[in-house]
């Protein structure tokens, strides 16, 4: 498939090379001012038009060899502003003999004339034909009075890039001064002194704390607290639930035993 395409392209290239090319002959340019003053030129580089000047352009399209006039099936004048990218294309009528005439009246400009600034409009002639090679001629630079800037497309608002979204975040939380934190941190500890002081005064007696019935229960409770502390430091939820579940079994047994013993003591004392 690809090969076929390439082959066709190559054949076409050969064909165009063989085809006769077109040329523009007798270009004549006339600018008629508002005061009827005329300026004629064969091939000027730049043309300046006032707000009410009229530009007339005549030429003949002919074969490069032989000079026989031809009528190309497409003839356009293209006005393009290279700075802004605005452009307008105006078809030009050509007689069967190849003669063409174009008139640009600045008082009533054609719709194809693009909006302009002070930059020049490049005017080029584009010719297309079935039998001849296509041709494009840069004619001249045209200076026309500046117009209003081009109107914006109604959808442009919708599809234009939006200003970047800037997120507003909550203000960063104020962390109090270290000294204040430290002071309160120390302050939290003083109830401990109150507690220990009172306990010292009351003097609780724990006669059975170290008896073999009680120790396992106390140890398992301490283990639970240790496990939870470990959870805070390191463990994940699943692990702590697993370990806690395992630990719960011996603690329950130890607790049952310890509390049964205690209740025995209590009732015995009574």
């Amino acid at each position: 498939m690809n090969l076929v395409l390439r082959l066709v392209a190559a054949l076409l290239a050969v064909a165009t090379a063989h085809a006769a090319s077109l040329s523009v002959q007798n270009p004549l340019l006339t600018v008629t001012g508002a005061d009827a003053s005329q300026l004629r030129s064969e091939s000027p580089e730049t043309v300046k038009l006032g707000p009410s000047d009229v530009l007339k352009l005549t030429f003949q399209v002919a074969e490069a060899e032989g000079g026989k006039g031809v009528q190309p099936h497409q003839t356009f004048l293209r006005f393009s502003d290279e700075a802004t990218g605005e452009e307008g294309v105006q078809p030009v009528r050509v007689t069967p003999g190849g003669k063409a005439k174009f008139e640009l009246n600045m008082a009533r400009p054609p719709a194809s004339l693009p909006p302009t600034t002070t930059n020049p409009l490049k005017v080029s002639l584009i010719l297309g034909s079935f039998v001849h090679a296509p041709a494009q001629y840069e004619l001249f630079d045209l200076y026309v009075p500046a117009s209003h800037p081009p109107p914006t497309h109604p959808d442009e608002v919708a599809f234009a890039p939006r200003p970047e979204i800037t997120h507003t975040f909550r203000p960063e939380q104020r962390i109090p001064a270290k000294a204040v934190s430290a002071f309160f941190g120390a302050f939290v500890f003083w109830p401990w002194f109150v507690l220990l002081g009172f306990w010292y005064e009351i003097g609780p007696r724990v006669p059975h704390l170290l008896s073999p019935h009680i120790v396992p229960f106390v140890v398992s409770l301490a283990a639970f607290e240790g496990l939870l502390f470990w959870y805070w430091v390191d463990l994940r939820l699943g692990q702590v639930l697993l370990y806690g579940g395992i630990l719960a079994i011996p603690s329950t047994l130890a607790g049952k035993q310890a509390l049964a013993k205690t209740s025995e003591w209590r009732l015995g004392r009574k």
Partner: protein
Amino acid sequence: MPLAYSVPTDLSPATVVNATSLLRIVALALISGAAIASRLFAVVNFESIIHEFDPWFNYRATRVLASEGFYEFWNWFDPTAWYPLGRVVGGTIYPGLMATSGVIYNILHALNLPVDIRNICVLLAPGFSALTAWSTYMFTKEMKNESAGLLAAAFIGIVPGYISRSVAGSYDNEAIAIFLLMFTFFLWIKALKTGSALFGTLAALFYFYMVAAWGGYAFITNMIPLHAFALILMGRFSSRLYVAYSSWYAIGTLASMQVPFVGFQPVRTSEHMAALGVFGLLQIIAFSELVRAHVSSKQFQSLLYASVIGMGILGALGIVGLTYKGWIAPWTGRFYSLWDTGYAKKYIPIIASVSEHQPTAWPSFFMDLQLLIFLFPAGVVLCFRELRDEHVFVIIYAVVASYFAGVMVRLMLTLTPCVCVCAAVAFSSVLDTYIDPVEPEAVEEDAQTAGDGAVSASSTAVSTSSGSTTTTKKGKKAAPAAHAGPLDGLVSTVSAAVSSKKGEKARGIFGGDTRLAVILNALGMLLFFVLHCTYVTSSAYSSPSVVLASTNPDGSQHIIDDFREAYYWLRQNTPETAVVMSWWDYGYQIAGMADRPTLVDNNTWNNTHIATVGKAMSSSEEVAYPILRKHDVDYVLVIFGGLLGYSGDDINKFLWMVRIAQGVWPDEIQEPNYFTAKGEYRVDDEASATMKNSLMYKMSYYRFAELFGGNQAVDRVRGQQMPRIGPTLDYLDEAFTSENWIVRIYQVKKDDLLGRDLRTANAFEQGKKRKRSKPVARRKAIV
């Protein structure tokens, strides 16, 4: 003592006890079996499939949990929902349901049982309904006795009001929440009765589970404080109440804050302040009780009471002040809509648009509860007769839940357990009275009639509906007597209770024929209840709504599977990043079944985004197109029931779209424009121009008339004749229409390659001659 019929006397008490407990276990097992089995209609009639809308999201989230693990699930950010915003799923859901099925899934796989996660999700609700039956049994046992408990378990097992939300495949939060609700209440009652911190802690743990599982946890958060407060006002404060409430609140509140979606709400929002207030009040009362134990001065006591009341008022004022200053968030809109049924329609149409948020229609009480609704008041009256602490709870529960069930259809669910408990208490009282073989001795006539009054009243309440009104009247008469007691003090209540017990001695039924008549009658009613429940469950509540069923002329079932057909089409034929726009009802299903990004879904957290979709649907193509393109929409999906007569389609929901859009863009969308001049909502020739130009209308009826081949096209839902020439679409292409036209999918056209606007391009395609017009000059000369 005379007996109405002979009872065997040669049984040892131990045998009787053993036999009854065995019978109870067997009965509970059978009830569980019945509860599970009656929920399997959906699987039997259709297939093992997830139902409705929300369950599809839960199912999708569970799949993520099962495959990715818990911590990944916790931090899951879903970029495909709420395109282009995305959704932080882990922080905006109640994860209890997914965690439950995740745990079950992992346990089963650890046991080498490779069960598909979908089947776990489908069968979770029936499984938990068995647990609900058990917890209702436990709860009712605390109210009356085991036999009432068994009745209550049987009721809740098959009552349609609960089945409606827990059939197999209805994988929603409510599936496990009702079990948790009942079990938490049971633990609370148990804690209150025994004064045990153990049960308080357990209640807190299950409360935590409930918080993690359902937004309705606020019901517990307010029910328990309300009960505690009522007990305090009745002068029934006790250390047991203190222990139960304090341990529940302290642990439960801290635990509830672990759920990310709840966060700091328990200390910040008004909904939770009642619990905090009662907690503070209890501390003050407990302290004053302690002080009173050490001081006997009468003056000091009065001083204490004054200070207690003063502190209570101060606390309440403090809470009000904090609310005013913005420290505590005021009530949310959803909460207001509970008190003012018109509130939601006015201010938050998105809440009002959900059908299950509508006020309940009265027939649905009878459909969902059948005979229980007659027994319910009788049960409440019986609670007044005993009026222990737990009966106060049931009474409060009954009043509150009845109100809520009247306000919102979906809250019928919270009423159902209470109705079952009360009805079981009433029913078992009847049976107890009439089965009891002991005949009263014929004593003096007046005492007999007086004693008989209440019992016969309650029995008539059971047999006829008119009887129930007489009971309530009598109950009301009895209630003030019981009510006045507690206000005076505890002593009078106790004495009243004792005296009423004495009176009971004389009660009883003579003869076997009355017994037989009443018992047969009661059994007959139970039989009809079972029939009704089975019928309602199989016909009304077992439709998955994803798959529809119709009956062929020959009576066989015809399955309409348009939804899945369309969603699988999307899955198979569109790129994975294709954004699908639809009304929010279908967001979860598209995400779950088609696995495509959606603009809005059933989470409804962003009203503006939903309103944007509403605006796109309700405005003309030219207006909608930029909205669609700006949101990268590739496909638009609409549900259309006009061909089949499926009434839950988008045209019927259309006015809500309009209303929601109007809430945000009142200048561009106006509801009256969608009605005809006569104020009718029509889709036929007479429809208003705005209606006919709206995207939703065009998408629904595009090429609809062609289907009838020149005959008059008829919309079978609205019953209206459609215009012969249907609407045309310029900016969208029909991409897919399902077999019965229920789901229609349109592709949003890209920009025209030649830079024309799509309307012109389309006109050109159809060979229409463009109206010749002078080209407009872009240049404007400066004059």
